[in-house]
């Protein structure tokens, strides 16, 4: 048989074989390392556990500042993250827990500490203001309302989870 009867020459055949075997070996070596490196991308996101914050009967219509700590795991580093929530009952009796992290640039807002604007959340950094239910007041810097904590009521106590942003202006 001569080369004329074949579409593949000896040179091509050897090239393909060598590249195939070499590529297989390189892939076998690199695959575990690449999977190792991209591990953070493929991890399932775990929401934080609900944390007991306060008794339901202590909640008033006036927002109360409550601090609580959440167990966090960051790789090999375990720590407690301190969190703040402003908790109150809305006029319809529903409980609301707001995150005090300003949606403008992340400063911590406080309730009712600005004599010029009573009964509002006020940010000390750039004068951002929010109504009692966390809606940002137009004409002040924040672009979105305050985040709201996931909540759960169990045995007369309020449990809080992650703070979720609310869209809109």
């Amino acid at each position, binding site marked *: 048989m001569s080369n004329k009867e074949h579409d593949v020459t000896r040179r091509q055949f050897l090239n393909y074989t060598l590249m195939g075997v070499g590529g297989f070996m390189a892939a076998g*070596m*690199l695959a*575990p*390392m690449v*999977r*190792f*490196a991209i*591990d953070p991308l*493929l991890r399932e996101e775990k929401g934080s556990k609900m944390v007991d914050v306060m008794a339901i009967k202590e909640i008033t219509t006036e927002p109360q500042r409550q601090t609580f700590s959440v167990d966090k795991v960051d*790789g*090999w*580093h375990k720590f407690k993250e301190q969190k703040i929530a402003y908790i109150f009952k809305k006029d319809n009796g529903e409980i609301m827990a707001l995150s005090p992290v300003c949606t403008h640039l992340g400063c911590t807002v406080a309730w009712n500490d600005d004599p010029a604007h009573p009964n509002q959340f006020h940010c000390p950094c750039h004068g951002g203001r929010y109504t009692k239910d966390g809606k940002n007041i137009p004409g002040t810097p924040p672009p979105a309302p305050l985040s709201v904590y996931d909540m759960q009521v169990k045995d007369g106590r309020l449990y809080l989870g992650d703070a979720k942003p609310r869209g809109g202006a």
Partner: protein
Amino acid sequence: MLQKMYNFIDERLDITPLWRDVADHEVPEHVNPAYHFSAFVYCFGGLTFFTIVIQILSGMFLTMYYVPDINNAWDSVYYLQNQVAYGVIVRGMHHWGASVTIVMVFLHTLRVFFTGAYKKPRELNWVVGVLLFFVILGLGFTGYLLPWDMKALFATKVGLQIAESFPFIGDWIKLLLQGSDIVGAQTLARFFAIHVFFLPALLMGLMAAHFLMIRRQGISGPL
């Protein structure tokens, strides 16, 4: 597709002579295991290079998780080995590959010695090879401390005591390596720096010299 991409680049940059120059070299019959199977002893140099490539790659990936700090080193190793996908394999490659590298270097040295390939005009390449051997031993020694477990700690203590026994300047060598009066935080940081920056840089420079010399002089003749 690949051919077209290659042609596109070659047309503009004329890269063919570059790789031709690297790839086209004589491989005499007496070093080719296809002709004489016993010629496999000539593979140990290439195998050493291959294991070093594995060490460099797996080491680069390990530093994505490893932290050279006394409070976190052990925990970060434990985490990358037990929590990260394929951590056991990547750390295993680096751990076992280190020993395999030393074995391959040793076999390569034996081959060169017993075939007399170190003789004139190749004495300088032998010298560079011995320096490479020391650099690789240094990489083994500094890497051994990094997991920061009891074995690492005491092996390093023993190693530093050996350094200390060097006449006259032993105390200084030990202090220079240890960076402190105990094997501790500063030792770990220092060994990490030596293991991932200083010695690998030296290793690559020496390897380049080693390969340039062998290409310049060619493979030594048969026995």
